[in-house]
């Protein structure tokens, strides 16, 4: 991105805030790039000849007589096969010591896919984690975030999902990633021998926060190249979107915009939707699946960032620690995959939807029983059984360290039903019960025995 000879150089800045600066200039296009005192900036407001620039690197040390040069084009990324295996900063410049990438230059944050050119997602993404595959099945072309408190191992789970997902390409967009986490991702991908199918755009905690605003668009421009031009399945990992939204709030605040809920800009929904809606399944086979992280504060999902995210994404995966079994689980109540209906019972065994729902319902009964117990009430026999069921369900299926295939998950479900409940208590469709209810001795048989035993 060198400046060219004929470009006009401006040297009189009239206004400087922490994230923006203004000057008088003519013929400037909206959203075009500029260099201010060696720092990259973008036009965010044009009032007559007053131009306001958002300076990605922060405005520290910018003098009023700084040199300002306009590029005449919006931010872009050069795309080609040689992106694979490379690490870049927010501007798309290599940070791995390798050479610059040659290729076709594309504007980032480009246009929307025509909805009628999309295909309905239908390819299951198996992760081996039952909390995901059984209860919240992922589908290619889906967009879904992890909602997690900062102390949850969300980056580890995300890396695990990425590696098991069998995508052609994995694109990592790191925003405010700590150096440790950056190295973690690098090592995990390296150890899995997957480095050559990974492209990373990283803004670390050491970089200025406003730079982050470019990361999702960079990552998704690369993703669109592989999905549209090469018909590949691409998995995009975005972590942490809360830090991205915080950067949006900083800029809007500096531009004197009226904040809406939780000091976030009123356009937060549209800003996030523009990113997440890049997830797509094309009829030609290419797809973009987005798995993101939205960190919560104290599990509060009513905060504007997770709230707006939840309305945009196709579900959310909620991690929490189950103290009864001492493991991190995918919370079955607050997690949801909206696209699972497209694959469960279709691409998976017919009993999948009903087993899933029945197990979650019984788990809910257990949580009621727990409340009862905590309030000091006597538990019924049924309550006791739900509690035992919940523990085993949590350990064998919900825990994130589970790695089994979906049929095995379903069999485990039936095994647990049989062990702890009667058929009527589980209340499943008769045909399924006939086909799948385990032969081995379960609660009903045990009871029968006891009864005949006591009669005798």
């Amino acid at each position: 991105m060198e400046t060219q000879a004929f470009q006009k150089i401006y040297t009189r800045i009239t206004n400087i805030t922490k994230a923006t600066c203004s000057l008088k200039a003519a013929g400037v296009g909206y959203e075009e790039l500029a260099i201010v005192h060696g720092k990259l900036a973008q036009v965010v407001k044009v009032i007559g000849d007053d131009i306001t620039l958002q300076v990605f690197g922060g405005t520290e040390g910018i003098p009023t007589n700084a040199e300002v040069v306009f590029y005449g084009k919006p931010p872009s990324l050069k795309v080609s096969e040689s992106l694979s295996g490379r690490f870049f900063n927010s501007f798309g410049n290599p940070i791995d010591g390798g050479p610059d990438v040659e290729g076709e230059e594309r504007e980032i944050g480009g246009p929307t896919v025509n909805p009628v050119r999309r295909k309905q997602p239908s390819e299951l993404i198996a992760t081996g984690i039952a909390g995901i595959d059984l209860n919240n099945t992922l589908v290619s072309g889906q967009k879904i975030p992890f909602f997690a408190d900062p102390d949850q191992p969300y980056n580890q789970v995300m890396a695990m999902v990425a590696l098991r997902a069998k995508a052609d390409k994995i694109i990592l967009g790191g925003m405010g990633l700590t150096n440790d986490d950056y190295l973690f991702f690098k090592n995990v991908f390296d150890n899995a021998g997957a480095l050559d199918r990974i492209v990373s755009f990283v803004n670390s905690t050491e970089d200025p926060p406003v730079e982050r605003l470019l990361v999702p668009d960079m990552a998704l421009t690369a993703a669109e190249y592989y999905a549209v031009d090469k018909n590949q399945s691409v998995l995009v990992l975005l972590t942490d979107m809360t830090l991205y939204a915080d950067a949006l709030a900083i800029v809007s605040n500096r531009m004197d915009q009226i904040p809406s809920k939780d000091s976030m800009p009123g356009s937060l929904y549209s800003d996030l939707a523009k990113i997440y809606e890049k997830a797509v399944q094309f009829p030609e086979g290419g797809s973009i699946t987005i798995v993101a992280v939205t960190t919560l504060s104290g599990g509060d999902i009513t905060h504007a960032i997770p709230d707006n995210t939840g309305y945009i994404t196709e579900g959310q995966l909620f991690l929490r620690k189950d103290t009864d079994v001492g493991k991190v689980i995918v919370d079955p109540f607050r997690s949801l995959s909206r696209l699972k209906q497209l694959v469960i019972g279709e691409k998976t065994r017919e009993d999948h939807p009903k087993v899933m729902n029945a197990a979650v319902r019984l788990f809910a009964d257990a949580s009621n029983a727990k409340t009862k117990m905590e309030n000091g009430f006597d538990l019924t026999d049924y309550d006791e059984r739900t509690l035992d069921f919940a523990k085993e369900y949590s350990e064998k299926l919900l825990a994130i360290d589970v790695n089994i295939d979906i049929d095995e998950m379903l069999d485990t479900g039936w095994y647990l039903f049989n062990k702890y409940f009667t058929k009527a208590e589980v209340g499943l469709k008769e045909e399924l019960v006939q086909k799948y209810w385990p032969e081995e001795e379960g609660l009903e048989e045990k009871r029968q025995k006891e009864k005949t035993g006591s009669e005798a």
Partner: protein
Amino acid sequence: MEEKGKQTKGKVRSIIANLVLVDVDGPISQNEICYIKLGNTPLMAEVIKVAEPTAYVQVFESTRGLSVGAEVEFSGHMLEVTLAPGILSRNFDGLQNDLDKMEGVFLKRGEYTIPLDEEKKWDFKPLAKEGDNVAAGSWLGEVTENYQPHKIMVPFKLLGNYTLKSLANEGSYTIKDKIAVITDKEGNDIEVTMMQKWPVKVPIKVFESKPRPFRLLETGVRTIDTLNPITEGGTGFIPGPFGSGKTVLQHALSKQAEADIVIVAACGERANEVVEIFTEFPELDDPRTGRKLMERTTIIANTSNMPVAAREASVYTAMTLAEYYRQMGLKILMLADSTSRWAQALREMSNRMEELPGPDAYPMDLTAIISNFYARAGYTYLNNGETGSITFIGTVSPAGGNLKEPVTEATKKVGRCFYALSQDRADSKRYPAVDPIDSYSKYLEYDEVKEYLNKNIHENWMDNIELVKDILIRGRESSEQIDILGDDGVPIDYHISFWKSEVIDFVILQQDAFDEIDASTPIERQRYMLDKVLEIYRTRFEFDSFEDVAQYFKRLINELKQMNYSKYDSDKFKEHEKQLEQIMEERKVA
């Protein structure tokens, strides 16, 4: 409306995202459409504020690359839609561009298409005869669109009375062919084609009157039809936090509701949800007509990543299409998902214009805008004595699931049916998660609706509905008491009362939208099942301990659920019913 004369031009002065300020050289009007030239690409925009000589326009596209001095041409009219045969089954964007006609994978800026097919010939049958007195909205003839009659009408813009001078004979015509000539009082002839235009922000009002709605609109969703029914021409709204099943419920309504035409405005929501409709509706049968669902459906898609300003336009475009079909004497169901996104689009713009904000930074006139919009729905007596209706149901996406936020509050003032989706119900997978106690249908207070329901469903229907609501409230009270005092701290009757309400919850309220049979329940079957559960309610059972109560009722519920999953009146259905009766005998007290 079509003013000829010198075209007003202007030049771009300022750009703040999709708000552009234009200095103009002539007269312009509020809401006038203009085109900003970005090189050779025209960007469509709408005037939203005028402060001479500057027009504030909202651009329906991205303004990236636009610079000061760009030329602007004003069109002389407001945002209009084209009304003619061929609207059904199409997928439009918020500005009525035909998405299928656009080339390439990505939507290109400044690409505007002709919404309808101008070449296609339609078989026209005259309905009026020469010499008839006609006025705006009079039916001149009809063509068959998919399988439904599509009336060709005198354009709504023509005020006053006319005489039909000539009318085309039965035959094939395109929407641009002249099919009639009408003469006004001064003797001027006006040519009429099958096509007309109408500005979307102005309601079409060529009808006799709008009575209170009184007929039930069957949706097949039990928690709506049985507990809180919506009427033909009624309004309703569905607020709920994300993940509570708003969209699944809306899709169920669009598939099952007993309407002639369904218009879906996908407003600022997920693209994959629209794709679901594109993909499934052409395959699914409408159980009432046996035709494909897509044949009665039109989709206005402005998904969340499409330009924000067009989001606002999309709901008006959809409503105008609904009004057009209503004028033909048809029953329209219009759905908008979600009205909150539209309100947010208004907020973004209001913020850019630096208006003083109302609550939560929404514009001050939000309530008025929402009220005016909902008022366009209704049951209508047309001028020729026929009836037509628009039933409107919008979803609301309250921030943080908090129903005290401005969009929900504003909608509550106008929506007559309130279907509150509850997080608790969704968490325990009790779908549809409509809260039976918080939700309401104001139509149940209308004498004409009560009368209609008692006459058409069952003479005791209203009494039964009241009873069901009481049972649910008592059940909730019992459950609270049990939670406070403990299972054995309350009399067994409390458990019985709680479980009797659970029977209603599991059998009537809960419904499996993904089960072929359970997804849609005709009203006759709803009546039958309601009688069944009320029979259980009226039966006295005897139990020794509270533990037996839960076990016993779970068995009852299981049989009733199997009935829900079985084809109505089939052998399997009857078999489970027999089982149910046997279980009831076990504990029955005379």
